[in-house]
């Protein structure tokens, strides 16, 4: 009887230690999105923003940046992703000021700064539309292994562009930190962005 009571206590103790270990493990990896720290290069580019100004990654230092490749003639997935990110920004409240969504066009032939400006502002004030020379855009997509390709022309000269749907998240120092997909729950993005913005990229 005594022995079984001791066994019960021992079990509880072991369970307690395991639980504590789990919690410690959680603290070591606080992210809910995919952690890409050290696996992707720092943010670097030379493009034109939606105001027609030449910009580089250095212009966004001090902000947590969300890099997303798309194009304005994409009627379904790109707007859905930007609408999701709009809700994330709204739910972040004042913290959202510490973030910028960089919407990089993979269709520079059609996406002029003016078109990108109208498009970006229709979604959220934190969205910056970026376009530029095809070679500069290709260099950026290659840097993050984000493929894109122009599909064959359809009738009337219109065409689609298939592209990588990942959202690459960089801390305020331009270091690659997290990767999100459009399917990731908004709660995950809010949790991780909250942490990244409020700590200035420390964890």
């Amino acid at each position, binding site marked *: 009887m005594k022995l079984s009571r001791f066994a019960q206590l021992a079990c509880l103790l072991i369970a307690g230690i395991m639980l504590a270990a789990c919690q410690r493990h959680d603290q070591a990896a606080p992210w809910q999105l995919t952690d890409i720290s050290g696996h992707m290069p720092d943010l670097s580019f030379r493009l034109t923003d939606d105001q027609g100004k030449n910009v580089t990654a250095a212009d966004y230092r001090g902000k947590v940046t969300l890099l997303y490749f798309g194009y304005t*003639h994409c*009627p*379904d997935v790109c707007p*859905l992703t930007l*609408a999701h990110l709009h809700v994330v920004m709204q739910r972040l409240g004042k913290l959202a000021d510490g973030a910028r969504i960089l919407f990089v066009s993979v269709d520079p032939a059609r996406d002029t700064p003016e078109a990108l400006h*109208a498009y970006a502002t*229709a979604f959220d004030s934190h969205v910056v539309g970026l376009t530029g020379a095809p070679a500069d855009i290709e260099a950026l997509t290659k840097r993050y292994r984000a493929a894109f390709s122009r599909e064959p022309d359809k009738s009337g000269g219109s065409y689609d562009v298939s*592209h990588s749907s990942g959202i690459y998240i960089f801390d305020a120092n331009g270091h690659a930190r997290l990767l999100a*997909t*459009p399917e990731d729950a908004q709660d995950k993005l809010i949790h991780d962005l909250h942490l990244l913005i409020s700590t200035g990229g420390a964890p």
Partner: protein
Amino acid sequence: MKRHAFLLAWLALLPLIAHATQSDQVKASQAWIRWLPVNLPAGGYVILENHGASAVTLISAQSTSYASVMLHESSTDQAGNSGMHMLDRLTIPAHGKVALAPAGYHLMLQQVTHPLKPGDTIEVTLNFADGSHLQVPFLIRPANTDN
């Protein structure tokens, strides 16, 4: 006499034929279009329920508000690349339902024929394989609508 019998048989069948159109057995709900600026192609979404005992096939759509309406499907491959392709037809099974929803089946509407803004409602005609049509009002909603 023979001619008379044929006519009678035809008249007897008429109500059956009249009730068999595909559009009659489809109920459309929550129809909306995501508004985009500068006359960009827009996505149209709707839930189609088939209350009939036979499958229904949507083959095309048109609207007086857009020069072109196409049936599309977005898909994402294993590498995370997303793309779109056109569909020839979309079948709604008997007593089943198909949702045209973001990141899946959708209508791609191009070249507005008159200015549109969020809050407007436009008519889209859905065309079915048996030649029947269904007129559906679509609500224009803001670009950043999330649902």
